[in-house]
């Protein structure tokens, strides 16, 4: 298996902060894995993610994608090769659904027919009938549909790596569960590497083939969900797992 993403001793400090947002972090992600990054707000998980597509630059250390040092790659070219989905979705409100999805192919100057075919294919994949939805504007879609379009837009140019920053954070729980299942099915069908940030422990353990648990800029544990539950690395992880179990007991009461 190829090494899709590799962090070597990466540190990032924001100006005016005495603490490192990301503190001497090293890890390797194999191609095709679905990695979730779990942590509470301010733990550095989003900072970690945004260093992969260089929205943030590390102060120290190196990041490699498929063995290539990303600081040596043109930042615009780098980003066009990586899918990116954010919590607020960030669809362009003045463009149709079709134009939104076609954005990166257009930036890459694909031929028109190829782009059109790709847009139709992606809309079909996310369950939106192309003829009906292609020419709609984002405001005419529900929250769940908008997030599906956001996902399709990130997938448009067939990137090998997908970055997702709490993509389902603002979506109601029923739609959220459905989107999680769809995303899992999607991941199974393609050989893409996903890096998915969340603060929801169930989401992290449900989606991740492996989970990175972060606190105060450090990676506390990076392992499969099963291993984390059976062998929590430290007290913080133990309390995290226990909190999820406590939630489960809460629901048991109503049975």
């Amino acid at each position, binding site marked *: 298996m190829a090494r899709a993403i590799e962090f070597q001793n990466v540190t990032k400090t924001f100006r005016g902060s005495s603490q490192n947002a990301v503190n001497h972090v090293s890890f390797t992600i194999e191609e095709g894995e679905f990695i979730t990054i779990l942590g509470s707000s301010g733990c550095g998980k989003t900072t970690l993610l945004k260093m992969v*597509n260089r929205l943030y630059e590390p102060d120290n250390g190196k990041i490699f994608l498929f063995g290539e040092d990303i600081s040596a790659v043109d930042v615009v070219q780098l980003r066009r090769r*990586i899918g*990116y989905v954010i919590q607020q979705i960030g669809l362009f409100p003045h463009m149709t659904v079709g134009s939104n999805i076609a954005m990166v192919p257009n930036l890459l100057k694909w031929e028109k027919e190829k782009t059109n075919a790709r847009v139709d294919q992606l809309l079909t994949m996310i369950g939106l009938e192309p003829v009906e939805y292609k020419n709609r504007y984002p405001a005419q879609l529900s929250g769940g549909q908008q997030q599906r379009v956001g996902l399709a837009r990130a997938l448009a140019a067939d990137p090998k790596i997908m970055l997702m920053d709490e993509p389902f954070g603002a979506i109601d729980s029923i739609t959220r569960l459905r989107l999680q299942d769809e995303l899992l099915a999607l991941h199974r069908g393609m050989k893409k590497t996903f890096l998915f940030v969340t603060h929801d422990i169930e989401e992290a353990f449900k989606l991740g083939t492996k989970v990175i648990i972060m606190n105060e800029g450090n990676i506390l544990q990076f392992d499969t969900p099963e291993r984390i539950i059976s062998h929590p690395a430290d007290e913080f992880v133990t309390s995290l797992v226990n909190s999820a179990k406590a939630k489960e007991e809460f629901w048991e009461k109503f049975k």
Partner: protein
Amino acid sequence: MIDYITAHYDDLAKAALEHLQIVLVTLAISLVAAACLTIICSYSSKITKFTLGLFSMVYSIPSLALFALLIPLTGLGKTTAITVLVIYNQYLLLQNFLAGLDEVDQSIVEAAAGMGMTPVEVLVKIKLPLSKGAFIAGIRIAMVATVSIATIAASINAGGLGTILFDGLRTMNSAKIFWGSLLSALLAVFIDWLLGFAERIWK
């Protein structure tokens, strides 16, 4: 009043057209200048602060004084008038343009940059189309201000409706004062209405 307009409608029409000409030339130059300044300002907040500060300072100088200051450089007439009007407009346009760009939802800008748009592409494809409303609003304010300040430019021989107005003041001719004021007010209202219409269409 009516007698004056039947006898002098050609003078009034000529002055009104001249006025419109000054306003339109000012608009064209102002837009090009403001667009360039906006692009330069979008690169750094320090430049923005300096530029806005500079133009707000100049904006606070009364127009008569600014006309007088420029006469040694550009002489009497339209050139000086248009130069002053363009300078005043920069403050109004730049402030509105920058505010419009600033109001674009940060998450949309981040999504655009994150998917690999260059800063210029983000500006042209995302920020500009999304701040159209603020742009037209700025142009509206600037145009109405231009119509009124252009009246005063008659004092340095720039022509326009101000000529009739100032003539009337000098000779105590109330018909001239009335028609000069009314026509320049009507011109301002008309331009405002036209741009308001454009604002509704493009929104």
